[in-house]
C-alpha cells in the first residue's frame, strides 16, 4: 500500500559562540559547572531585573537567517510566552512571535540539501533556553523530588522551523547534517557539545493527524525516532485505527516513541510584546554588515574546493560535510600544497580510521579526529614523501596506519624503515638467489622477455612473506638478470 509521509522539523541550536547569555552577561559556557553557579539576578529572574539584549546573538541569528535563504523583517521584537514550569525562572519565556506581525528574525526561506532536494524554512527565531530539571532517580515517573539547575537558563537559542517537506527519514538526516555543517561554518554553535543542537519532529501519513515527537536527544536519533513513528502510524492505518493528534516522547533507552505521561492540553500562552526590549531595527546597513562579516558557507566552500583545487564534487562534498574535515584539509594545504593528493589521503585513508570509531555511538559527541594522533603536518609530510617518490603508496598507507596511533612524523618513520631494509639487503639478496636457483626456466625466459621478471618478483615476495620492498627486490632481480 502506497503511503505519503509528511515530516516537519523544529530545530533548536544554542548560540554557544555568542560567549554570553541572551539577556545578561553570564557565560554561555555553563556545562560542567556546579549547579546554579552560572547565574545572575537577570537570568535567575529576580524581581526588578530587566533583560538586556545581547547584540552578538542578533548578528548570529541573522547569519543563520541568510544561510537558510530567509527574508528579514524591517525590525524584530520579542514576545513573552507565558506558562508555568519550574525550569522557567520568570514563568514566561522570551521568544519571537509572528501571529500579529512578523517579529522573528527570519521567515520564508529554502535550503537545498543532498542532491538537488530542498526544504522550505518557515521561520528562524531567537529565544531563551530554560533551566534544567534534574530528577533524583533519573526519571520523572519515579522521583519524589526534582532539582532545578538554572545554569542553562537564558542561553541563546535559534529555533529553525521547517515546512513539512520531508518524506523520508534519510532525507531528514541529510538535511540535519547540512544544518550542522552550516552552523559550524558560521561559528555560531559548537555542535559537539551535548545538547547544543536538538530537534523535535512532526509526522503524519496520508494526510492524517499530526504527531509531534519530542525529547530526541541527538540529531543521530532523529532518523530512528522517525522510522519508528512512521512504522507505528502505518501499522495503525493498516488496522484501520485512527492516529491521534498528540505529542509523543522518544524513549532513548527503548528506542520507541511513547505517549506523554503529562497531559499536554492546548495551552494558551498569552503572547504579548516584551515591553523592556525596544524593537530592534535591522535595516539594509545591518544586513550588509552581516553579509560582510559572515564566514564562508559550506556550499561556497565546496565550489571553491572544486574550482581552486580541482577536487571532484564527491570529494569536495565529503570535506565540507564536516567543518572539521574541511578545516583539516585547508590547514594541510598551508603546509604543503598538493590538493588532490591530500584530499585523497584525508577522505579515503584517514577517514577509514575515523569510520571505525564512529560506529560506536558514544564517540559521536567527540571531535572527528579525537584519539587519532595525526595533524595536518603529518598528512602534509606523507603527501610530500609520496609526491617525491621517496616511498610508494603501499608503504605510505602502512606508515599512516602506524602514525595514527603513535603520532610519529611519516618522514622519520620512512627513514627508519628504509634503514632497516638496508640492514636486510643481504636477506633479500639471499631470497633472490634462491628464487633464481628454483626457477631456472623462468630466469631463462626473463632474460628475453622482461615481463617475466614480475613472475620472479612474485616468488621473492612469497618466500619473504611480503616483507620485501617490491621496488628494491625488482631492481635486484633485473640487475641479477643482466649480471648472469
Amino acid at each position, binding site marked *: 500500500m502506497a503511503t505519503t509521509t509528511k515530516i516537519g522539523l523544529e530545530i533548536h541550536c544554542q548560540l554557544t559562540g555568542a560567549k554570553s547569555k541572551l539577556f545578561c552577561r553570564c557565560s554561555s559556557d555553563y556545562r560542567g559547572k556546579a549547579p546554579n553557579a552560572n547565574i545572575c*539576578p537577570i537570568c*535567575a*529572574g*529576580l*524581581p*526588578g*531585573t*530587566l*533583560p*538586556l*539584549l545581547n547584540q552578538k546573538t542578533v548578528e548570529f541569528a541573522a547569519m543563520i537567517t541568510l544561510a537558510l535563504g530567509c527574508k528579514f523583517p524591517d525590525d524584530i521584537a520579542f514576545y*513573552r510566552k*507565558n506558562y*508555568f514550569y*519550574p525550569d522557567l*525562572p*520568570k*514563568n*514566561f519565556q522570551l521568544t519571537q512571535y509572528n501571529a*500579529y506581525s512578523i517579529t522573528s528574525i527570519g521567515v520564508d526561506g529554502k535550503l537545498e540539501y543532498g542532491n538537488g532536494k530542498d526544504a522550505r524554512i518557515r521561520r528562524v527565531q531567537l529565544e531563551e533556553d530554560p533551566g534544567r530539571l534534574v530528577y533524583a532517580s533519573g526519571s520523572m515517573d519515579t522521583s519524589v523530588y*526534582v532539582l*532545578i539547575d538554572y545554569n542553562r537558563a537564558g542561553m541563546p537559542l535559534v529555533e529553525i522551523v521547517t515546512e513539512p517537506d520531508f518524506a523520508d527519514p534519510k532525507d531528514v538526516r541529510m538535511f540535519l547534517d547540512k544544518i550542522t555543517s552550516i552552523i559550524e561554518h558560521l561559528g555560531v554553535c559548537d555542535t559537539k557539545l551535548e545538547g547544543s543542537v536538538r530537534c523535535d519532529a512532526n509526522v503524519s501519513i496520508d494526510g492524517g493527524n499530526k504527531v509531534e515527537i519530542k525529547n530526541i536527544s541527538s540529531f543521530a536519533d532523529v532518523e530512528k525516532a522517525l522510522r519508528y513513528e512512521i512504522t507505528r502510524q502505518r501499522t495503525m492505518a493498516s488496522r484501520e485505527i485512527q492516529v491521534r493528534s498528540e505529542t509523543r516522547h522518544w524513549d532513548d533507552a527503548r528506542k520507541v516513541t511513547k505517549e506523554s505521561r503529562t497531559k499536554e492540553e492546548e495551552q*494558551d*500562552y*498569552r*503572547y*504579548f510584546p516584551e*515591553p*523592556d*526590549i*525596544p524593537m530592534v531595527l535591522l535595516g539594509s546597513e545591518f544586513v550588509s554588515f552581516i553579509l560582510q562579516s559572515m564566514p564562508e558557507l559550506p556550499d561556497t566552500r565546496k565550489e571553491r574546493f572544486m574550482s581552486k583545487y580541482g577536487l571532484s564534487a564527491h570529494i569536495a562534498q565529503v570535506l565540507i560535510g564536516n567543518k572539521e574535515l574541511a578545516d583539516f584539509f585547508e590547514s594541510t594545504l598551508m603546509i604543503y600544497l598538493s590538493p588532490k593528493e591530500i584530499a585523497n589521503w584525508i577522505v579515503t585513508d584517514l577517514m577509514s580510521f575515523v569510520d571505525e570509531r564512529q560506529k560506536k555511538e558514544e564517540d559521536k559527541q567527540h571531535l572527528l579526529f579525537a584519539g587519532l594522533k595525526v595533524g595536518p603536518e603529518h598528512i602534509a609530510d606523507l603527501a610530500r614523501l609520496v609526491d617525491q617518490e621517496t616511498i610508494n603508496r603501499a608503504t605510505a598507507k602502512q606508515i599512516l596506519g602506524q602514525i595514527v596511533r603513535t603520532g610519529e612524523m611519516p618522514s622519520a618513520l620512512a627513514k627508519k624503515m628504509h634503514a632497516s631494509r638496508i640492514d636486510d639487503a643481504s636477506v633479500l639478496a639471499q631470497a633472490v638467489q634462491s628464487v633464481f636457483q628454483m626457477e631456472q626456466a623462468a630466469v631463462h625466459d626473463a632474460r628475453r622477455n622482461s615481463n617475466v621478471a614480475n613472475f620472479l618478483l612474485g616468488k621473492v615476495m612469497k618466500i619473504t612473506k611480503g616483507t620485501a620492498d617490491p621496488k628494491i627486490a625488482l631492481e635486484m632481480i633485473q640487475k641479477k638478470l643482466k649480471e648472469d
Partner: protein
Amino acid sequence: MPLPLYTLEAGQVVEGIKNREFSAEEYISQLLGRIEKVEPKVNAFVTLNKEEGLNRARMLDKKIRDGEQSGPLAGVALSIKDNICTKGMKTTCASKMLESYIPAYDATVIKRLMSAGAIIIGKANLDEFAMGSTTEFSRHGPTRNPWDISRVSGGSSGGSAASVAALECTASLGSDTGGSVRCPASFCSVVGLKPTYGLVSRFGLVSYANSLEQIGPVGRTVSDVVSILNVIAGSDENDHTTINSNKPTYSLQERKGLRAGLVMEFTEGADPGVSKMIYNAADTLEKQGCKCEEVSLPSVQYALASYYTIATAEASSNLARYDNIRYGFDMNPEGYEWNSYFAKARSNFGEEAKRRIIVGSYVLSSGYYGKYYLKAHQVRSLLKHEMETLFKRYDVLIGPTMPILPFKIGERIDDPLKMYLVDIDTVVANLTGMPAISVPAGFADGLPVGLQIMADQFAEQTMLDIAYLFEQAAKVQRSPEL
C-alpha cells in the same frame, strides 16, 4: 527655640551638614525621633534602617571633618518605596510573596543616590506590588493621611508621600505606573514628579507594568524634587528603555509668559471643591504672567480602559515569577505536585493583585488580544497624538491631580471600579510617556488638593518652571500638625 532639623529642606540639610552647623548624625537622630513619635499614627514605613542609617551619617560626618567631597545630597534622608530593590535590606512590595525577600543588588537609582551622599532611612509602605490608589492593599496595613489620619494617604506610593508630609524624612522615591507618585503627593500636599518614560532607570524597580512606570521623587518643595531628579535621571546600561542622552540637569528658574492649557475634561469630572481650587490655581498662574486657556482632550474618555487593560496584562505576566520556588515564604512542598504547589503558594497574593492577574490573563487570552490589548494600544497612540497636537500650542497642560479629596479609609476598598475611577487624571501621562508633576494647590474642606502639570516628552524643565512659579506664588501651608 530654633526649628527642629527635621523640618529642613534638602538644600538646607546639605548646606548645614557641609558647613558643620549640625552633624549628619544629629540630623538622622532627630528624624528617627520624629519617626518614633508620628509613625504610630501614620504607618508610612515598612522597614526602618536605623543602625545602618546612623552609621552612614557618622561616616559622612567623618568625611566632612576630613575635608573630603560629600556629594550633592550629602545627609539627605530618604524613604524608599518598598518595591525598589535595596541590597541587603528587605524589599517586600507589601506582599506575603516577598515577605522576607532581601535583594542581592541595588537598583540603579539607589546606587546613584548613595554615591551622591543620600542616606536611606527606611522603606516606605505601598499597595501590594504598587497596585492601588490608597495604600490600603498593603500587608503592613494602610498608611494614614498626615492631614487627617482617618483618611487614605493615596497610593500606591502612600508611604513615600506620607513620610515626606509627616516630616519623617527629607524626601522620598516612589514609583508611578498610573499616578502612584502624584496621587499620594496630591492627597498629602507634597510635590510628586513622574518623569518622562525612559528618563530614569527602572533597573531594580519590581515591575508592575513595565511600559507605563517610572520611578519618581517626592519632596516638600519643587526644589527638593529637582535635586533628587538631577541625581537619578540619565541613561543606564542596565535598562534598554532609558534613552541614550547626556545626563540632563534641571534648575529652578523664574520664567514668565508660559502658555498653559487647562484640560476641560479633568475639571468637569472633578468634585466642585477640587475644581474651584484648580480654577484658583489658573488665576494665580495668570497673575504671574502665564496665559491660561481651556482645552479639550476628547480621547481621555478611553484612557482608563486602556490603562487598566495594558497595566493588568503586563502585571499578570510580571507576577508569574512569584511561585515560591526561588524566594518567598516558608511553605512545605511535601504532598504537592508542582502545579498544585504553585497554585497554593500564589493564593497568598492579596485581593487586588489577584484581581489584576485575572483581568490581565483574560485580556491576553487567545482570541481576545485584538479586542482588548491591541485596542488599548491604539488608544495609547491616539492620546499621544492628541497631546502632541496640544503641546504645539501650549507649554504645559494643567488640571487637578485627583478628581476628589482624600476619602475615608475603607470607603472604596470594596468597590474596585469606583477605586479605578480616581486614576482618570493621572493615567494619561503614563499612557503617553509624558512627564507630570503634582504640586500642592491648597485645601478644600481642610483637605489637600494637588495641581497637576503635564508637559511634552523630555520637557521636564518647562514643567518645573511652571511648578516653581506656582509654588512661589501660591504659598501653600507645608506640613500638618501631628
